[in-house]
């Protein structure tokens, strides 16, 4: 399994043709306490770079983009009752949605962990 990152602070874990997407520790820290997360419906068709989910803190709302194109297989229902999961475990239990990949080649432009760390350091 490999993990990639986008410049918009999404992470994506890829396992064969399936992937899980969430936001990074850096992103949740910037947002502060998460109060609400809206995940896409099962079956939704996502385009790389397009709106996939919404994450809200008290005074900010951000769109979470799809790092790659694909079809949603599951949304993290746990976030409905406990949006704080995104703060406590953003890169684990605070995942947003799972999807099947439409085109694995789209992963090519994404950063690995080291590159993302360097990217954040430069912000």
């Amino acid at each position, binding site marked *: 399994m490999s993990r990639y990152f986008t410049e918009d602070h999404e992470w994506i874990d890829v396992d064969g043709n399936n992937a899980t997407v969430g936001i990074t520790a850096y992103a949740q820290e910037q947002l502060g306490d998460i*109060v*609400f997360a809206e995940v896409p419906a099962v079956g939704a068709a996502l385009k790389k770079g397009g709106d996939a989910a919404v994450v*809200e*803190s*008290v*005074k*900010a*709302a951000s769109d979470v983009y799809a790092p790659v194109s694909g079809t949603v297989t599951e949304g993290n229902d746990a976030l409905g009752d406990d949006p704080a999961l995104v703060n406590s475990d953003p890169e684990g239990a605070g995942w947003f949605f799972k999807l099947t990949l439409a085109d694995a080649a789209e992963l090519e432009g994404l950063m690995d962990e080291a590159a993302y760390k360097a990217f954040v350091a430069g912000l």
Partner: protein
Amino acid sequence: MRYLPLTQTDRSAMLSVIGADTIDDLFVDVPGEAQLDGPIAGLPYHASEMAVERHMSALAAKNMAAGAGPFFLGCGAYKHHVPASVDHIIQRGEFLTAYTPYQPEIAQGTLQMLFEFQTQVARLFGCDVANASMYDGSTACWEAIVMARRITKRAKAVLSSGLHPHYVSVAQTMAKFTGDVLDTALPTLTPETDADRLLASIDGETSCVVVQYPDILGRIADLSAIAAKAHEHGALLIAVVTEPVALGAIYSPGEMGADIVVGEGQSLGVGLQFGGPYVGLFACKEKFVRQMPGRLCGETVDAEGRRGFVLTLSTREQHIRREKATSNICTNSGLCALAFSIHMTLLGERGLRDLAALNHGLAVQAAERLAGVSGVTLVNDNFFNEFTLKLSKPARPIVRELSHHGILGGVSLVRLYPEAEHLENGLVVAVTETTTAEDVEALAAKLEELLA
């Protein structure tokens, strides 16, 4: 000038600190050709309080006040008695001159009041939640239609023929720009509402059905069947209440299955004011709360564990969500919401029920007396405090003639529906606790004369 505290000494001292010679130096960014040399020509200079009062009083004197004689107008704005305390309380500087409660630590007065207001509105309408008010009933109605579209993802709204024509007009204006499709119809001078037409129009494309309760002619219909059919087809029922005092006597729309209930709160605390400012009421089911427009006040605790209130779910709003906001609305109608809430608190539901019983009782008596005038037929089978009369002659000239005799006799339907010839003889009459038997007698006698 009495509203300007700075003296010439102050101004010189301040310019000195700033490092400017004259005030003109501070306007240096404004292109010379756009700057005016002096006060705008053709406009009067400043005036004393006394002079302004004289001018405004003279203008006020040219209006016939509702309280000056027999008064029977309704159609979305009602004359009720507002207890003297209400106006005193809302004029306290801490309420009148307060800002939006964005700094909650020093705005608990406004915030607690809004929480109480939201609870009162939700309970009155029979809904789970209510917001902190909108501009007025007509814009609240439109916002509800837009909210229904967001929820159902459909664009077709069916509007009852009994919906206030101004509310319909607002929706039609907005729909031209948003692409919502509105199914509308004109009312007829019959005792039945258009419930049958509404039931027949609901299908899988319908986003919402919008019904006024009581309607523009004063008629009341059970909304349960419409709610049921709407829900069967995945659509929402939006009820519109332009006279909240009615809910002291009849079922709330929420109890009958309405998903969103909007209305005009003017009847309580606010006064006629020639049409504004009024207060829009907006309530809905819990599951739709994140789709609501407008401000919301919520309960929380402070750092010492004490209960307090804050504006919440702000991410729906324009200052955060910008293009993706649920509405562009920024203000609510804060001071009017306060007036409504104080009046409602003074009434309590006990007082509201008594007020409603009084309104209905007086209206029934008035309707009977007026229906007894030859040339007058009562259209309604049922009504709360407002009913429609069919006169033997066109109503509009009668209304004008009545006003020449110091009687404001109601709203002629053709004033609201200028093209509708079939409504030409229709007159909508409202009766509240402020109406006396003498008022009714005066109207009856004059009508008798004018219809002879």
